[in-house]
């Protein structure tokens, strides 16, 4: 499973959205209906899955699914 697929799986679980909604361009807030607590939960799930630390200031810059893919691939 590549990074995008793993991220899509996490987002589906955490936000309770349909898999086909989680496109690379999808914005967590505008398209996937996440609020600030949801974002924290998603970020924490990323941290667990990929065994990385995502500081708050970096998390603020993750707006879309593709942003998350880029950030995580860069961090690995």
């Amino acid at each position: 499973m590549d990074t995008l697929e793993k991220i899509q799986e996490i987002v589906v679980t955490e936000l309770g959205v349909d898999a086909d909604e989680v496109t690379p361009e999808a914005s967590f807030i505008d398209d996937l209906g996440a609020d600030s607590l949801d974002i924290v939960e998603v970020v924490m799930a990323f941290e667990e899955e990929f065994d990385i630390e995502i500081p708050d200031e970096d998390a603020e810059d993750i707006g879309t699914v593709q942003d998350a893919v880029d950030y995580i691939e860069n961090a690995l």
Partner: protein
Amino acid sequence: MSLKGKVALVTGSSRGIGKVIALKLAEEGAKLVINYPVADEAESAQQVVEEIEDLGAEAIALQADVTAMEEVKGMVKEVKQEFDTIDILVNNAGITRDTLLLRMKEEDWDAVLDVNLKGAFNVTKAISRIMMKQRSGRIINISSVVGLMGNAGQSNYAASKAGLIGFTKSVAKELAPRGVTANAIAPGFIETAMTDQLSDKVVEQMLSVIPANSFGQPEDVADTALFLASEGAKYITGEVIRVDGGMTM
């Protein structure tokens, strides 16, 4: 049996008010986690477990020093293994190191703040994600009227209990959208082993400022905790309920 099937963790519940709260929640059908800080307390914690089992409810005793995040995480993990989830958290663990400010050592300050305030932070943080995920939960912090009005000789204790109130309100705001409530109880003078040691003169002085003209019982605090843990309290959050016989109104 209003709490049937719910899982409750009460910190510092091997004795004192914590024990009475644990028994009260168990009477209503909750499964209980009796937390105690050090091995010396293991026996009394086990006795509480047995008393709960006699009521026909389930309970386990787990040792964890609430000031140590790793121990707290370990405890929460064990609770999840045993009972799957945590529905009710009562941050009750507390200590006093009373002395006048002039004589208060840095260790006295740190010890009280560590257990009473940081301990609540550690346990609340460790369980908040579980409650958020299940979209329900009750966090009940045992503060004190001393946190509202101050008390000579208790600047450390008062600061910790006032801190708990600010903590309660912030957590309430953060977790309200997830169906998790956070409230504080501020007991006044409650009859415990501690108040039993007071002289008649001090008791008389204390009673003179309590309109109810009597000390509270641990059950009075436990009944309030039970209410806050119940379904009926779901729309109450960020509240501080005084249980003080009218002392500080």
